[in-house]
């Protein structure tokens, strides 16, 4: 209920209006004193007798004095009940302050100076302290590997380096918070992180208070000065004081100074809410259970680098590490591939005939290989490509030599002996054999050359080819006669040469030969006739050979003409030849 007594103005004048607002508790009464108002009492300025209304006015004034007497108590009781009184008076108080400042700012400034002065000093001191802490950390971190990484991060994100350092440095957790009764040192409340192991918190709390007193006494600090913090390695205890309580927070790691603000707010709130409990504290700590949520809020934790936003993986360090990883992987792949290729290349050369590898070295940029090489062997330069190498990749040094590999011996024999198409040469177990028909000169020359070839121990002449050649031929006769059939001259001529060659070959290879000239007949005649005609045909051929070649004539003992008639393997009008070697 709002009470007000407002007397605007009372002027006793014949034409004035007297307006009185009555308190609500008193029946409202409004008096209008005016000459026009028939109810206006007759007023006299000379102090003549007061009318009833003025008596009533006096009564009202007396009542307002009575209200004034009860007002403070009434206000107190109302304020205890709820905050409506505060709400109602708030605009009035605000307006009063505004008016006071407008009229004379000094009054209010002087009034609040004792509060604002220390507050400003503390704020400035904390700001400076934070700045120094930041500077120290910056200096400390500038030259470390971590610092360099942070510099990269600063460049990438565009943030100032100092800010990046601060962000990365905040790695701490508040492990325990003690609320201690300042006067007795008794622990009122204690909250911890779940994972924290603690000593007997009641004794710790008392000891902490003792240490505070000890520091205070020992160093003769001013009355309101208290121990702010204790620090042991990465563990520190930050202490905040209120008039009746101490809040001590045990922090592991490097906490930022603005954490103090959280502690300060907590202790101020607790002080405000529990002030009476502090004063009448008799050892029962249960009344402080309500402070636990506030203390729990002080168990702050910052995981620093682990707390970075997810997905932000493209940081310079990660990129660098990624690139290095890829390079390592690619390098590894090329290394292994190169190793594999080189091993295969060298292995192939080692197995290749005509090549002897004496040295093979794999270098980082260029490989080296050296050894002996037959010029008939495969050319290493040509097979480099098969193994993925360029000629620039491999330095090669091959000394020429001749390999006694049968393949190469034969190839060299073909090259140097240059046999005519009718001659076939072969090589086996150190023996080079030339078989076929060629001039005796060729054979003589071939023998000399062959023995000069590496790997050839012996040169032999092969008769098989010549024998086959001769034995495959025949001279045809007109049947029933002893006359050559048509066009036999060429065959006779060839055979003459071949027999000459055979006799030369036999002589040079110191062999004996015999040639049987077999005359044949068809079955049309009698056996006797056939025997006779076949003999005649053989004789004729022999005579022909002797006629054509003096050489054959001189070797006549090697030739024998026989008539076999129409029997045997062939029944034909022809002459065939059989060569026998001994």
């Amino acid at each position, binding site marked *: 209920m709002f009470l007000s007594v407002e007397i605007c103005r009372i002027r006793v004048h014949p034409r004035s209006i007297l307006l009185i607002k009555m308190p609500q508790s008193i029946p409202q009464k409004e008096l209008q004193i005016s000459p026009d108002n028939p109810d206006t009492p007759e007023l006299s300025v000379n102090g003549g007798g007061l009318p009833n209304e003025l008596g009533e006015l006096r009564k009202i004034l007396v009542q307002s004095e009575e209200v004034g007497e009860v007002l403070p108590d009434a206000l107190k009781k109302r304020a205890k009940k709820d905050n409506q009184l505060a709400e109602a008076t708030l605009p009035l108080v605000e307006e009063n302050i505004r008016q006071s400042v407008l009229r004379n700012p000094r009054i209010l400034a002087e009034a609040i100076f004792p509060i604002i002065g220390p507050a400003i000093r503390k704020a400035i001191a904390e700001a400076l302290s934070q700045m120094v802490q930041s500077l120290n950390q910056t200096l400390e971190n500038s030259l470390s590997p971590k610092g360099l990484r942070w510099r990269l991060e600063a460049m990438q994100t565009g943030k100032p380096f100092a800010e990046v350092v601060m962000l990365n440095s905040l790695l701490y957790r508040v492990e325990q918070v003690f609320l201690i009764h300042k006067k007795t040192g*008794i622990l009122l409340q204690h909250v911890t992180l779940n994972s924290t192991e603690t000593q007997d918190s*009641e004794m710790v709390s008392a000891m902490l208070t003792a240490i505070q007193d000890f520091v*205070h006494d020992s160093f003769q600090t001013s009355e309101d000065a208290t121990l702010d913090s204790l620090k042991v390695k990465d563990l520190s205890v930050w202490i905040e004081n209120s008039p009746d309580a101490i809040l001590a927070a045990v922090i592991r790691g490097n906490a930022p100074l603005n954490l103090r603000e959280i502690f300060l707010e907590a202790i101020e709130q607790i002080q405000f809410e529990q002030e009476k409990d502090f004063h009448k504290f008799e*050892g029962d700590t249960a009344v402080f259970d309500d402070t636990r949520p506030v203390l729990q809020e002080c168990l702050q934790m910052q995981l620093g680098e682990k707390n970075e936003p997810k997905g932000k993986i493209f940081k310079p360090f990660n990129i660098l590490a990624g690139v290095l990883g890829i390079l390592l992987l690619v390098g590894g792949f090329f290394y292994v591939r190169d190793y594999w290729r080189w091993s295969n290349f060298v292995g192939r050369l080692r197995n290749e005939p005509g090549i002897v590898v004496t040295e093979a070295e794999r270098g980082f940029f260029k490989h080296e290989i050296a050894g002996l090489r037959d010029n008939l062997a495969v050319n290493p330069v040509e097979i480099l490509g098969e193994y993925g190498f360029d000629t620039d990749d491999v330095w090669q040094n091959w000394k020429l030599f001749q390999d006694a590999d049968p393949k190469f011996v034969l190839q060299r024999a073909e090259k140097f002996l240059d046999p005519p198409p009718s001659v076939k040469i072969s090589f086996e177990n150190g023996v080079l054999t030339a078989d076929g028909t060629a001039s005796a000169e060729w054979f003589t020359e071939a023998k000399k050359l062959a023995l000069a070839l590496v790997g050839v121990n012996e040169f032999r002449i092969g008769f098989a080819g010549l024998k086959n050649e001769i034995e495959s031929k025949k001279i045809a006769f007109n049947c029933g006669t002893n006359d050559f059939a048509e066009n036999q001259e060429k065959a006779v001529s060839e055979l003459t040469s071949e027999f000459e060659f055979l006799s030369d070959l036999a002589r040079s290879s110191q062999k004996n030969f015999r040639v049987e000239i077999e005359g044949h007949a068809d079955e049309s005649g009698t056996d006797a006739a056939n025997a006779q005609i076949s003999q005649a045909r053989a004789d004729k051929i022999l005579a022909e050979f002797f006629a054509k070649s003096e050489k054959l004539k001189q070797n006549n003992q090697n030739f024998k003409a026989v008539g076999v008639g129409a029997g045997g393997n062939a029944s034909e009008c022809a002459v065939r030849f059989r060569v026998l070697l001994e």
Partner: protein
Amino acid sequence: MAIQKKICMLGATGVGKTSLVRRFVQSIYSEKYHTTIGVKIDKKLVTVGETEVNLLLWDLQGEDETFKIRPAFLRGASAYFIVVDLTRHETFVTAFSIQQMVEREVGQLPFLVLFNKNDLTEQFEILPEELEQMMKYGWKMFRTSAKSGERVEEAFQQLAEKMLKKDCA
């Protein structure tokens, strides 16, 4: 939940305060705290009626010529022991000065005087008459022995009861 109370152990140097509590209390601090910061905190749980009382024992460094008790350590105490060594008369004198100092600094509080080393009968320097005189002051006293543990538990119990009754005599 037990109520918490701060109790001080006072007395001259070497009267056996620390020995007196060593066997009867929980402790996490070593005795070097006496010489460093002048106090060591221990804890003792006693039950008075249905009330559990957690006594936080501020075992203060013994007072002598060179070291005076820090008044700050007395602040907030609910009761205190004064320990006297029966074999050293000067500790008896110190007890009086300590008691006066406490009253001056923190006012009247319940307390008990413990006459320790009661086992060393032959070496007593404090005469029975002096003890009787002290009784006239109204001081409550116990003869204890830290060595045998004689009446130590009882002393704690007594002090707790006096403290809850706020019996300052």
